């Protein structure tokens, strides 16, 4: 009987790992992240190899503006912290504050996307298009892929918030919240390499 202490609907203390299904989801998600590392790695290797092939287009040091990149970095870093707080609130079973942190995560993700769209728009007006040079193609593919991941994360977390409103926090919904946080941190980790390799090293030359 005591082994079934959660039968009255009380959540276990780490609801995302309470069921075999939840644990399997986490395991599978890490395999996916290993594959994501390879995906971004190939895009990085293409970018690193091609980043000086600018043809007639602007070079990296002419193009990039550090304040914008710094703002984007801060937004994404803060967003990552918000999703940590969401998972901690989930562990304390505080559904309302968890939703609050998730909403903040999504809003900061959207702010990052807006900044990136404005940035790309500026680049295009400065003659840095997808088909300008090998540098521009590999730049838009790499950074755009990351932006696409952010957009997917925003959509995913928004849908999870809706699902929490509908179904509440259970051993079924908890692994999803946990994994979306892991995904969001992974996006932030990839961004660390992007701002280092693409923007800062591009600025140095």
């Amino acid at each position: 009987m005591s082994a079934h202490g959660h039968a009255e609907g009380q959540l276990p203390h780490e609801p995302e790992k309470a069921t075999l299904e939840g644990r399997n989801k986490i395991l599978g998600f890490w395999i996916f992240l290993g594959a994501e590392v390879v995906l971004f790695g190939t895009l990085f290797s293409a970018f690193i190899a091609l980043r000086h092939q600018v043809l007639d287009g602007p070079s990296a040091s002419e193009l990039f503006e550090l304040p914008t990149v710094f703002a984007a970095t801060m937004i994404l870093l803060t967003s990552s912290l918000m999703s940590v707080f969401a998972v901690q609130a989930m562990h304390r079973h505080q559904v309302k504050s968890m939703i609050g942190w998730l909403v903040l995560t999504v809003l900061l993700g959207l702010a990052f996307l807006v900044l990136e769209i404005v940035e790309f728009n500026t680049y295009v007006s400065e003659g840095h298009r997808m088909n300008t040079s090998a540098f521009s193609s590999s730049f838009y593919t790499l950074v755009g892929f990351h932006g696409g991941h952010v957009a997917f994360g925003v959509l995913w977390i928004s849908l999870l918030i809706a699902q929490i409103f509908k179904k509440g926090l259970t051993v079924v919904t908890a692994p999803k919240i946990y994994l979306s946080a892991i995904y969001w941190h992974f996006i932030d980790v990839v961004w660390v390499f992007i701002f280092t390799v693409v923007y800062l090293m591009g600025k140095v030359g």
Partner: protein
Amino acid sequence: MSGNHSASGEEVRRHKVEGPQKHIVAFILSLALTIIAFAAVAAGDINTTFTYIILVLMAIIQVFVQLAFWMHMKDRGHMFPIICIIAGVFIVFMMVIMAVYWLWW
């Protein structure tokens, strides 16, 4: 029966007291590493090779901080995630070396 319950409740609470402190520390650490990297580039007049070394070092430290604290890799039972990520990084290293070798030499 109820005694049993409160005991497991206490155990739950004991497991649960993972405060936000270490995550805030990880955040401040990431912030500092980011600012160092940006400052090294914004300063401009430092030796290029030295700037590169600073940048790569800051990025690697920050990634380790975030993987360990935010993605829970330092917690128990995370051997499999570590293997997954190391396998990915291994392939990436081969890929980067191959692409650079192919196109630059």
